[in-house]
Structure formats: C-alpha cells, structure tokens
C-alpha cells in the first residue's frame, strides 16, 4: 500500500515536470524545429555513411549491411530513451553552482530522481516514435534473422541498458557535485557511448575489452542487437545484467559520497 502511494507520488511529480518541459518546447517552437531538424539530419547523415561504406565493402567486421544498420538503429533507440528520461543531467551543473540543489535536498523526494528526470525531452519523444516504427518494419521485412526468444532478450537487454546508462548519469552527477563541472563529463559519456553506433567488434584490442569490461559500451549498445540476432551467448547475457547491477550499486555509493562533499556554494 505504501509502495503504491510512493509510486503514485513519483508519477505525479514526473507528470508535472514533464508537462512543464513540454510547455517550454511548445513556447520555443522555432528552436524545437531547429533542434528536431538537427537530430533528424544527424541520423540520416550517419545512416547514409553506413549505407555507402558497407554497401561498397559488403561487410563490416563480419556483419552484413542490414546487421550493421540494425546495430545503428538500436544505438539510436537506447540513446533517445536515455535522453528522453534523463535529460535533467544537462541542467544539473546550474543547480550545484547556484546552490539551488539545496531546494531539492530539503524536499521529501529522491534527489537523483528530481535532478535527472526533471526535463523530459518532447523532441526525443517525437523522434523515438518514427524510429520504433522504422525498426519494426525493418525487422518485419526479414532483413535480419531473429527468434522469439531473441525478441524477449532484446527487450530485457534494452531495459538493462537503461539501468547501465542511469548508473553512468549518476556518476556524472556525483562528479558534478564534487567538481562543479558536469558539461564535458556528460558529453564525454555521449562520445564514448557513440562508439556503439557500430558493433564493438570493429574495435581492436585492448579497446574492445575496455569497451566491454571497464566502460561497458558493448553491454549498453551492442549486446541487445546481438541478442536479437542470436549472436550472444547466455554467459554474456548474464554478464550484462551483473555488470549493470555492479555499476548501479557503485554509482549510488559514489553519489552518497559526493553528497558529503556538497558545499552548498552560492546559496
């Protein structure tokens, strides 16, 4: 009963924050159009590049053109999902620098939830819908081979990727509390995760191992698509869930430590 009440409270808070952020996008319509155009062009340009490149060479690290395209589509799905719900990290620095984080700390709500989920991006919601439709059509046309268990694993690993991305965002927020510098840390995460636009198998050792075990971009971006195509062994599936759990646990510990360093500057 208490859990139900808590969930209801958080859903209401999220709804209110989302409504506020959506209003902001609607007010700045021309900005929204420009941002949306930029996102669309970025997607199209890289897709065009993949079609040109892999179309010419027929394969990339043993993957066919359609498989490479599906890796890229999955990368976009995960990236947009994360941006959709955790966009608040981009506003986190101003909270810390101005001392406004105090106002969140004293409220009866989880600070991380309030900080990370405070800015639901309407543009990401607009872009994710056609992306999912495109992916469904792409898969339904039989461009890649998959099984029903593959679909289940794919969905589970997408959720797992979100948990892992959440852990990364919590780490970045913690760094922000300690150093007052968030902007480049979150962009660094974006750049490292962008290495998952292509399957991690493309990278040579030791970078491949680094992207699998140390900064698990392989788990974040490559493994879900591999699972759908039946190219991921059960050991790697277990590894994916374990490493996400470890990262989430570690990030929460780090966050707690970071809060002890918060100096409430400028407040």
């Amino acid at each position, binding site marked *: 009963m208490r859990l139900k009440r808590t969930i209801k409270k958080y859903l209401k808070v999220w709804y209110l924050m989302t409504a506020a952020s959506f209003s902001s996008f609607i007010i*700045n319509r021309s*900005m929204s159009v420009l*941002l949306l155009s*930029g996102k669309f062009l970025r997607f199209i340009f890289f897709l065009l590049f993949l079609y040109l490149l892999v179309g010419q060479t027929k394969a*990339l690290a043993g993957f066919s053109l359609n498989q490479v395209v599906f890796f890229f589509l999955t990368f976009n799905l995960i990236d947009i999902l994360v941006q959709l719900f955790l966009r608040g990290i981009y506003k986190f620095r101003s909270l810390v620098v101005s001392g406004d984080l105090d106002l969140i700390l004293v409220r009866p709500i989880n600070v991380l939830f309030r900080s990370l989920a405070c800015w639901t991006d309407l543009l990401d919601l607009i872009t994710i819908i056609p992306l999912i439709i495109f992916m469904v059509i792409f898969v339904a046309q039989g461009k890649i081979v998959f099984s029903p268990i593959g679909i289940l694993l794919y969905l589970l690993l997408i959720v797992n990727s979100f948990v892992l991305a959440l852990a990364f965002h919590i780490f970045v927020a913690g760094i922000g509390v300690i150093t007052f510098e968030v902007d*480049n840390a979150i962009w660094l995460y974006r750049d490292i995760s962008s290495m998952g636009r292509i399957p991690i198998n493309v990278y*040579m050792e030791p970078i491949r191992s680094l992207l699998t075990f140390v900064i698990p971009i392989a788990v974040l971006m490559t493994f879900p698509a591999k699972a759908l195509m039946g190219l991921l062994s059960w050991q790697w599936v277990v590894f994916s869930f374990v490493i996400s759990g470890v990262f989430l646990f570690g990030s929460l510990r780090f966050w707690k430590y970071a809060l002890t360093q918060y100096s409430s500057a400028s407040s």
Partner: protein
Amino acid sequence: MSKYFQVVRNTFQEYLVYRLNFIMWRVRTIIQFLLVYFLWLVIFQNNQVVFGYEKAQILTYILGVWVLRALVLATRTDGVGGEIARGDLSLYLLRPISYIKYWFSRDISDKIFNIGFFIVEAAILIFLLRPPLVFQANLLLILFTLVSIVLAALLLFGLSFLLGLHAFWAPESEWGGSRFLFNIVLEFLSGGLFPLDILPAFLFKFLQILPFSYLIFFPLNVYLGKLTTVQIFQGLVVMGFWLIVINWAIRLVWQRGLKVYSAVGR
C-alpha cells in the same frame, strides 16, 4: 593590438581555471578520432582500395580531420549568440574594443591551446597505433595546404560569427537550436566524417559550391595530392569568394542588428 593580446592571454587563463573540463574536451576529440579511425581500419582489412583511397591515404585523411578540428573547427564564437541574447553585448559596445576582433582573438587562443595538446596526443596515438601515413614531399602542395587551412579558419570564424548574430532577432533560445543544426551540418558537409568524394557525383558537385567542403575536405585533398593545380586554384578562388560574401554579410547584419538591439537582460 596589446588589448587583443590580453584577450588571448585571458582566454588561456580561462582554460586553466576549468582544467577538468578542458581535459575532458581533449579526451572527447580523441574518442571522436578513434571511432572513425577503427571504422576505416576494419574496412581496409579485406580491401586494398576503397572509393579510390588507399589505406594510408584514408588514415592520413582521418588524422588530418583531427588536426583540422583543432585548427579550423575549434571556435569560441558559439558564445556570441548568448552574449547578445543576455544583453552582455552592451559591455563591449561601451568599451574601446572591436567586438569581432575580440572574438577573433579568443579563437586564436583556442586554436593555439588545442594544437598544443593535439601535438602531444597525436604523437602518443601515432606511436601506439603506428598507422601507415602519407607524408607529402611536394613543398608547393604543403604551401597550398597551409594557405587553404588559414583561409578555412577565417571562413569558419566568419560563418560561426555570422550565425551568432542571428540572436539579434531571436533573443530567446532559438540561437541555441540554430547552433546545434549548424554543428551537425558542419560535421557532415565539411568532410569531418568521411571524404566527400565518396558521395554520389551530383551531390558531391553541389557540395563544392557551398563553403563547408573547403573547411576540411579541400585542404586535406590538397595535402594528399589528389587535386590538380587548376582544381587547387579553383578551390582557393571559391574560398576567397565566400570570404568576401561572409565579410559583407557580417557588416550588414551587424549594422542592422545593432538597430534592433535593446540590451534585453541588462
């Protein structure tokens, strides 16, 4: 002149204040390089020539893109729109300083700082990766490359500054959206992701009319010796044309912008 030298020094000091941010920015440029580098490397595992490029040529191109990101694309002028929108421009209008020269000085500082770090990073990565590279021996081509890089840096500065002036008419956050779109277009149309001549011929010819392809693709092709002397001169003329057009547009937009500027936020 000394006041602009002071701006260069101040910009240096800004970087030293936010050291972690700067280090992360440098790491980001390395990651962007590695993504494209390994992608092309794996392509050449089973191919000798792709799109008319040999392995050494394409890896030199990728490394060259990294250099030109530091020398040409690195700019501080993305702050122009914000200053106008916040009304901070008033502070400069009251001072005996040229706003465009002020930002140009900041850009010079930015490029010096970036290239200094780039040399160290590139030396380490070349030592670790040992890629086959093309070393141009023709001094004339090297000279043309250097000239085209200087013109490209001026071109990018002009384009980016002009975009920032858009904030005179859009003092809300629209200028942020246009900057985002500009950066995406710039990355692709300049040849930052791949050499533009792999595109279909009609698209490639169209892109050669626009100024973007002269920021990265053109200087690197001059260096690689893929252009004839006539093509090099044609390219330099197009760059000169765009510089004149952009310079004229900046003057016009600046004068008209000042007429509508109301120092909102101050």
